[in-house]
């Protein structure tokens, strides 16, 4: 296998797909730079899989265009598109051996036999599948099946790799390992990839950029860091796992930032609010807060539950107006836990990256 592939960018231009009255995908525009991996992230039914299937050629867009490199592929059938997909069910052909599965795309292209052999052996080596080529897919473990599916997609040297929730049939540990392998292969070959998942952690760990989708719309596109620090709206904030969204009163704002009041405390934002008005809200990240014994300055409250998960202890604290705040304490000392019912004082951060609205 060559060190790099002839890869290309993907451009989605106002892409829509309607099923009857349902707008599964609604005017989505997105550019995936050549060589990068973009995750489509969102809850089930948000249109991410439909978008992926349109790129692969399995669904005809209702409106809009798809370009791979400079070539428009919107109406091309799947078998002439330079894309290769890794299916959620793997879709390994049960009546063929591992070898025949991997060779399938090459045979479909009527490639000479010695070259097929060379390429398949290459793929077997890269995916650490040596010795498995005579087996039939049901004899393999979930992780091996996953590797065969990836090898089968890679041997055809596609310009674009598509992943449709490829890890959802694996157990948690294997999932973490396989996503590392997928990322490593993708980086090494520098192949443009679109990866669909509903798992925020998976998306953040694997992607150059994450596109969050909701109800057919592309809500926000950004690096994992951008999404986490500056979520575009409440949906993104909640979907990327930030649970404390609290109302705030705007005290002062200028181009350099803003000052808001939250539970009687003042907090600085490094960015001004997106819309004008006295009421706004912000995200308090669990790891940005601390708990002190009651009496200290801060927001008074009492511990409702605590969960010790090893590297951190996660408290849920009820503050004055009944709101529940999640507060993480890292590297905790088990002798100094605040037990349920203890009155505490929540230390809010002095500064946040941005306001939510």
């Amino acid at each position, binding site marked *: 296998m060559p060190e790099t592939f002839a890869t290309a960018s993907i451009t989605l231009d106002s892409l829509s797909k309607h099923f009857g009255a349902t707008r599964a995908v609604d005017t989505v525009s997105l550019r995936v730079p050549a060589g990068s991996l973009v995750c489509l992230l969102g809850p089930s039914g948000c249109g991410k899989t439909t978008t992926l299937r349109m790129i692969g050629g399995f669904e005809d867009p209702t409106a809009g265009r798809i370009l791979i490199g400079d070539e428009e592929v919107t109406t091309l059938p799947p*078998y002439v598109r330079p894309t290769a997909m890794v299916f959620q069910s793997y879709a390994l052909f049960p*009546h063929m051996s591992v070898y025949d599965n991997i060779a399938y795309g090459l045979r479909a292209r009527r490639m000479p036999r010695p070259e097929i052999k060379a390429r398949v052996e290459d793929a077997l080596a890269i995916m650490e599948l040596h010795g498995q080529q005579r087996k039939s897919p049901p004899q393999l473990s979930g992780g091996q099946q996953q590797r065969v599916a990836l090898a089968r997609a890679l041997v055809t040297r596609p310009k674009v790799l598509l992943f449709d929730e490829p890890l959802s*049939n694996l157990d948690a540990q294997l999932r973490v390992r396989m996503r590392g392998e997928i990322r490593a292969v993708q980086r090494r070959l520098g192949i443009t990839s679109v990866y669909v998942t509903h798992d925020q952690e998976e998306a953040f760990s694997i992607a150059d950029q994450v596109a969050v989708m909701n109800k057919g719309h592309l809500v926000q596109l950004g690096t994992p860091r951008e999404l986490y620090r500056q979520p575009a709206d409440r949906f993104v904030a909640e979907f990327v796992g930030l649970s404390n969204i609290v109302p705030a009163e705007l005290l002062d704002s200028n181009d350099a930032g803003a000052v808001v009041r939250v539970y009687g405390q003042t907090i600085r934002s490094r960015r001004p609010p997106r819309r004008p008005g006295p009421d706004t809200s912000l995200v308090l990240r669990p790891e940005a807060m601390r708990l002190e014994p009651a009496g200290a300055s801060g927001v008074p409250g009492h511990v409702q539950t605590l969960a010790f998960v090893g590297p951190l202890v996660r408290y849920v604290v009820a503050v004055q107006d009944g709101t529940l705040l999640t507060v993480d304490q890292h590297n905790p000392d088990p002798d100094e836990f605040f037990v349920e019912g203890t009155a505490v004082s929540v230390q809010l951060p002095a500064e946040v990256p941005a306001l939510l609205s």
Partner: protein
Amino acid sequence: MAGKLLTLPQRWPVTRQRQATFAALIVVEALLLALLAARLVQVRVVEDRRELVGNVETIHFRREVIGDPLLVALLAVGVAVPFFSGRLRREPVLLVALQAGILSLTIFVLWPLGQVFAQGFRAGPLATGFSLLQFERLLETPMVARATRNTLYIGAMSAVLATVIGTLIAYTLSLTDVPGKRWLRIITTLPLVSPPFAVSFAILLLFGRRGLITYDLLHITSWNIYGPHGIIFVQLISDIPLAALILSAVFASISRDLEEAAEDLGGSPLYVLRTVTFPLVTPAILTAALLTFINAIADFGNPMLIGGGYQVLATQAFIQMIELFDLQLGAALAMLLLVPALLAFALQHWITSKRSYVTVTSGARTGQVRKLPGWIKWPLYGLVLLLAAIDLLLYGSILVGAFVRAWGFDYTPTLENLSGLSSAMPMLRNSLFVSVGSGLLGGVAGILFAWLVTRQKFPGRGALDFSATLMYAIPGTVIGIGYIIAFNAAPYFWTGTFFIIIVAYAFRRLPVGLRTAVAAQRQVDPSLEEASLDLGASRLRTFALITFPLLSRAFFAGVIYIFIRSMTDLSTAIFLNAGRTQLYTVRMFRVMITGTPSEAAAFAGLLVVIILISLGLLSKLTGKSFVDLFRI
């Protein structure tokens, strides 16, 4: 050994009561077996020879064993063997259920089939020992050689054509977006549940010498439908739906992901069809070819009605058995039918067990409409419409024919044909009684065997499954012949009783009842039964309160299926019924041969109406189209 058998394994909480129950079970079973043996094996003292020495005549007597000591020995082994499993000894209910299963399969499946072989190698009714005389006789009869060739020809042609056309029909109705699929599926499946010879009768109404289309509309007199092409045509009408049914189940279960993956990897639609779709349905195609082949070679009614003197093995066997009462020659003929059927069954079994791919993984999408170019899709749709039109025409002609004075000559509407039915009421009662009986028996047996085969672990489970499924591949005529040979004479004398017909039907259709129940059983999470056992319910209680209620739909579907198949059967009935137990289909068949077409149409029409009502009931009961229930 007896001591070991009587004490229960340690893990069981041994109480006096349990031990007493276990001992009682052994005693009761031994007694029952002894009673059965006394009934099945009798020793009689018969006169051997007389010697005249001077004036004194000495009469020599000898003891003669009549009956079936071999069967008794087999049964004793079948009852005893399960006792040797420690696991089974701990579970008396399972033990008794298994014994009942082994006993019934031995008596009603393996023994009659074995008897076909035993009789076929016998020189004459009273002869003992091995002989090839019957086969020499067969070779000497040119008629038999011709009938064998004819049978294979009819079987091969029907199987190939029905499988090809059935595959196309199934593909169109499962995977394309043509209009009216629901009704087309129902109409094209109907011939499967009607008496097959009603089709050839309807064909005669339309295309016969005085047929509505050939004579009245087209005025053709030089051509006639009688002969091999007529038989094949008729066979196709009922075999195409069979093939289509088997294949549509598989087409509907192929994961769309597989084909998409193939296209995604660069396979053009035709390449994908050749390398992915077609290999995946190969096992189903083989099954369809096997079943249509067996149907075609076993059929008795159609060749009699439309063959026009074209002899096949089934008709030859009938003549030898029933008209000339030559059991041994009939058995040899039945073997000629049985051997290709068993070979085909073994072949199909071997291939499908090696390669069965219909595994549904999570996230797999099945049964989605495939985009097809119009020049492929619409001709396929035309084929479906043509078949549906022929089916409607056939059933229409039967229903109309029942209400005209004399089909072919005088088409004045009349009700007088119905009066002929009144004489057939006793036969209809017989048929209903037998069919309800075999439905219930087959349904219960199906549930029992399914429970044993899917949920329980014991040695020899595969053999039990195989024996219970074996009848699937046995031509109906051979079953009739086997039952006559096995149970005709002393000590049974079962011929002419309702019992033998009910049992024959129940066990003949057991494979379908079993498969339906197994499919339903697999749908039920085993943890439901485990939860019941865990909560302290016994096996019996769990079966009655958990397993059976969850399977009741499958049970009733099985009962009605067997009922319908029994109501419309002729191949087995013609051998097993007698004067007092004459069945409706047999009577109807005689009317078709000897009566006027309109009288016969009234008979067929009534049967079709009964079947349609049963199908409606079946759909109502299960909330599914009957088409889905006939998938095996």
